[in-house]
């Protein structure tokens, strides 16, 4: 089991991939949240 854990230790290339993958989903989501908050602020105007 320890050997399997050792093998599955994340590599450097997978860290780059990780950053790209989170940006792939994070950027559109952040845009959607920003637009929604902008519209929501009208509730308090």
């Amino acid at each position, binding site marked *: *089991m320890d050997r*399997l*854990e050792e*093998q*599955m*230790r*994340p*590599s450097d*290339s*997978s*860290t780059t*991939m*990780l950053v790209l*993958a*989170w940006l*792939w*989903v994070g950027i*559109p*989501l952040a*845009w*959607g*949240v920003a*637009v*929604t*908050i902008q*519209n*929501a*602020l*009208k*509730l*308090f*105007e």
Partner: protein
Amino acid sequence: MAFFDRANSIAKPGFNRWLVPPAALCIHLCIGEAYAFSVFTKPMAQAIGVTAPLSGVDWSVPQLGWIFSLAIAILGLSAAFGGKWVERAGPRAAMFFAASCFSLGLIVAALGVNWHLLGLVYLGYGVIGGCGLGIGYISPVSTLIKWFPDRPGLATGTAIMGFGGGALIGAPLSVLLMKHFANANGTGVAQTMAVLAVLYFIWMCVGSVIVRLPPDGWRPTGYVPPTASQAMITNKNVVLESALRTPQFYLLWAVLCLNVTAGIGVLGQASLMIQEMFGVTAIAAAGFVGLLSIFNMGGRIFWASLSDFIGRKMTYAIFFILGAVLYFLVPTFGHMHALALFVLAFLVILSMYGGGFATIPAYLRDLYGTVNVGAIHGALLTAWSVAGVAGPVLVNYIREYQIDHGVAKADAYSITMYIMAALLVVGLLCNLAVRPVHERHHLEEQPVTT
């Protein structure tokens, strides 16, 4: 097609398990667009008239309302009947299937809008797209639970948060595209749907490529699986057929159904409700709906993560007790004209609505183990289909009934709120009745629990 084989999606050395949540989000952020379908309602209702509905020719709003209801009903059915296949085929094939169905559904619906054939829109978005919703919804769940045995609530909460967040992207993106394609001859709905189909297909396929299954016997560094079952968390496994014979399945079905019924009815009527109770403008009401969507999304990750620490049963107990109290107080906030308290109450209620969806897979994993959790989760989602019809019908018809009997519009929601509170009390009783699954249902030959 070997690329899609389950065996070829097993992680190689060096794989980072934190790649699986964004893979799941690729699917859920896309299929979550279903919550934004209402942005198409008005333009579709004047597809022929363009600037205004053409009486007797254009589709009516109730006719269009069935598209979303049909999609949610098919979501539940396809998740229920496709769950076993998803477990067998693996997440990569399931995600690709979901991407194909969801995008093909949008293309068929776009053709239906273009040729003004409502049946084709029902078939496309409702039936074909609904299959994509159901298979897509459950496809990453059991994989995430296997990668995160130490934090199953956080893992499933992250993915299912995407379904809540999909509307936050889908709604403004659809509005932008419709603005771009609209002209004197059309509202741009068909072109928008076609573009969305292509974008969502690419986005979902990325998730399908990234996702991996853990190798047999893998567990996170430092994680020691419990050697004996704890009070509400088993280290045994129960297959779908056995799970369907346990009372716990039906209690959790009721728990999910009642929690969703209470939230979904309000979600559909939120804009109208705040306008009628407080006299705010339609633009401000749209802002309120946007805030609800953010809390619906945020609640999914917040409550599911919290459930890793306080337990699933306690988390649902909070949903039902706090939810019932808040629903009971909402009419009072209306009479007091306390807009801020009214908004705050619904933000908390909607966070718990989302939290209910996100916490249920981990609750199932606690009771039934990991082997068939995806299939059991799929079967449980039929509760969503029922709630998706019952919630809006309950709110709409009670409101209509009260207005027809002379109740002022501002007061027409009071009884509905009290009924919602009562439903949540019933949900609390069902949740309190949940006990660990009897050992006669456990698999005799125990597969390795990751």
